[in-house]
């Protein structure tokens, strides 16, 4: 259903299409090393077309990136599958660096991030600051040319393999809430950073706790002003909720395909189950259409709250799809492979993927903003409903 034709007359679109064709010609995806391909993609400004020229972009409208992804994906080039290892960096942190950081920071971080040489993590949540991020307590105190960081983060995705982290810390007093926060780039390999795995529902360790014990961060690694952290966090969270994968089949379609396979293995055609599956297929189509639209509608670099819609829909949808998958498995749903500790990147499919995805899908409506927070954002920022009065 890919329709690139809508704006084929647009000169920006033509330029992007030509650049992608050149990239594919000079670096045939089938015979090019992934990192080398991504470096070439970055150097041609096709990493994030909305970024400045020379910094992985072309200064073009962000929605043209969807076209880039569609064309690359159709040519078998590394796209979403690669980014998944560094989705936080490429999809969320990079736009915040460009919006709030300095050109020297762009030059230092963007290229290694995009080609996967440096994995990033996002150090936001704390034990006492989950949905209410403005309650965070990790301290940053200026000492000479360094900021000294002390505190604890939790639920940090990919911290165990990250080289860099984007840290949200408090520069003001606790009462300053969202006004007294700053964003820093931290070196995750520093011995003053202690990363400890946290296991999730399926035994895997996607998430971590991260402890900072007098970590010294050079003042140059502050992103924006010492009180600009909240704005940086908003930029990151808005990007978090918009998938950059407009060209791929879509998260929902993949989950649906898995359970359709299970359904087709069954010998019966129970009408109630069958109708549930059709309902899920309809919702999947709707979610993928909306996600595509959200990706296309993006302004230059400030996704709006509409991304919350896609996040809310996908999390509910995936839970419904895998619940159906379990019901379709019937007695087989009683079985599970291994709950042994492992990092997600070391996971080897063991024939119990529906069960694993079913369990893990519970986290979809929690991570990256709970569904309740999403509904608040939609209610207040899209529909304009009044905020809840503070006690």
């Amino acid at each position, binding site marked *: 259903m890919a329709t690139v034709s809508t704006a084929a007359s647009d000169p920006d679109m033509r330029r992007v299409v030509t650049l992608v064709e050149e990239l594919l010609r000079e670096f045939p995806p089938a015979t090019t090393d992934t990192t080398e391909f991504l470096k070439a993609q970055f150097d041609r400004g096709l990493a994030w077309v909305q970024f400045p020229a020379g910094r992985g972009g072309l200064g073009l409208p962000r929605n043209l990136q969807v076209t880039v992804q569609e064309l690359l994906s159709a040519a078998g080039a590394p796209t979403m599958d690669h980014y998944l290892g560094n989705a936080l960096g490429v999809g969320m942190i990079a736009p915040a660096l460009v919006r709030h950081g300095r050109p020297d920071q762009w030059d230092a971080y963007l290229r290694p991030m995009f080609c996967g040489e440096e994995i990033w993590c996002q150090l936001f949540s704390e034990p006492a600051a989950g949905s209410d991020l403005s309650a965070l307590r990790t301290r940053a105190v200026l000492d000479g040319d360094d900021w000294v960081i002390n505190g604890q983060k939790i639920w940090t995705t990919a911290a165990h393999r990250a080289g860099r982290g984007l840290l949200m810390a408090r520069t003001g007093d606790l009462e300053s809430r969202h006004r007294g926060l700053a964003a820093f780039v931290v070196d995750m390999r520093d011995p003053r950073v202690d990363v400890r795995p946290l296991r999730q529902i399926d035994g895997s360790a996607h998430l971590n706790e991260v402890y900072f014990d007098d970590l010294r961060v050079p003042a140059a690694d502050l992103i924006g002003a010492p009180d600009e952290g909240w704005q940086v966090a908003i930029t990151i969270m808005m990007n978090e909720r918009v998938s950059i994968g407009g060209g791929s089949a879509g998260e929902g379609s993949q989950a649906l395909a898995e359970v359709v396979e299970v359904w087709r293995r069954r010998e019966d055609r129970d009408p109630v189950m069958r109708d549930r599956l059709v309902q899920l297929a309809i919702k999947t*189509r*709707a979610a993928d259409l909306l996600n595509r639209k959200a990706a296309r509608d993006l302004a230059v670099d400030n996704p709006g709250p509409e991304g919350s819609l896609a996040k809310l829909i996908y999390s509910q949808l995936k839970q419904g799809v895998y619940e159906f998958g379990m019901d379709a498995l019937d007695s087989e749903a009683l079985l599970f492979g291994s709950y042994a500790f492992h990092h997600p990147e070391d996971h080897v499919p063991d024939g119990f993927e529906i069960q694993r995805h079913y369990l893990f899908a519970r986290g979809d409506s929690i991570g990256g903003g709970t569904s309740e927070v999403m509904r608040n954002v939609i209610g207040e920022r899209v529909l304009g409903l009044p905020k809840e009065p503070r006690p």
Partner: protein
Amino acid sequence: MTVDGARLDPSEYDELRQVLRAFFARCQPSEPPAEHTPPLDRGPWLRMARELGVQGLLVPERWGGAGATLAEVGLVFEEAGRALHPFPLLSTIGLATPALLASGNEVAMKRYLPGIADGSRVATLAFVEPAGRWNPGSYDTTAVARADGWQVSGVKDYVLDGGEADLVLVVADSADGQVMLAVDPRQPGVRVIDRPALDRSRSLARVELEAAPATLVAGPGRAPEALRHTVDTALVCLAAEQVGGGERCLEMSVGHARERVQFGRPIGSFQAIKHRCADMLVELESGRALQRAALEQVLHHSPDRHIATAMAKSFCSEMFRHLAAENIQIHGAMGFSWEFEAHRHYKRATAAAVLFGSPLDHRLRLAELLDY
């Protein structure tokens, strides 16, 4: 404003939308009809044709229309749906016009389309029978070709705007297969009986035919495909109307939730209401996305269009009904009141869900089409 030739540039949609919204706002019935669906007020209907060219949107220019596309028609239905319009739009431009166009019958098009475009002719399609099966199939109504023309006999039911129609296109089975015929309801052998409709904004009739004189519009080689295409088009139009209705219900709910104060604060600041509204938006936008995709697929005659229209109709039916129900709930006792608009949307939504096949009907068909 007028629409001339082919598809509008999307930048012009806003203007068209404004014009339609203003027009439909003037045509709001003041009082909800109690005893029966009120007869069509031909004045506004004629003005809609002359001033806005709505009835002629799909009609080619040589027959007095604008030669526009289903995209513009979809917009009309969205706006009409918002306004709970009282017009025979779904019958005339959602069913009869696409049926005539799909027939490929130049004589019939030349004869009937100009009158549709100028507002002088209300037209409908009678295909469903008392059994109430909306999915095109075989019919008990029979048509016979005689030396002096066709004759058609049988009973059609749930005929949209049958009581207002100046032209009834009848689908019937003949010795050689399915045919589509034009019937003048004022001819002998035709009896049109108004049905008491749950949704008083849209009239339904039963049409009894006893050797009624008829004119062939599409023969067996053409009629089944023409009917299928017509139903796909009507599904997209109805889904657009449901999106418009859903949009209006959400708008009313949000407006009320912002204004209404209880326990010292606007009720929209309570998560119980706010989250309900957020979920309504999610449903509305999902429905809109499915409806727009279906429209594009029918417009481009894409191979998956039957899947897309069935998905859109199934989802938008449940979406509109749910949003109309939530709208009543959020408005409290006022939402349940006769004088207030909310119950009319709920009735429209309830009837629209059944029209052209229930959500379950469409999903059963989808299960086959998707090979589940």
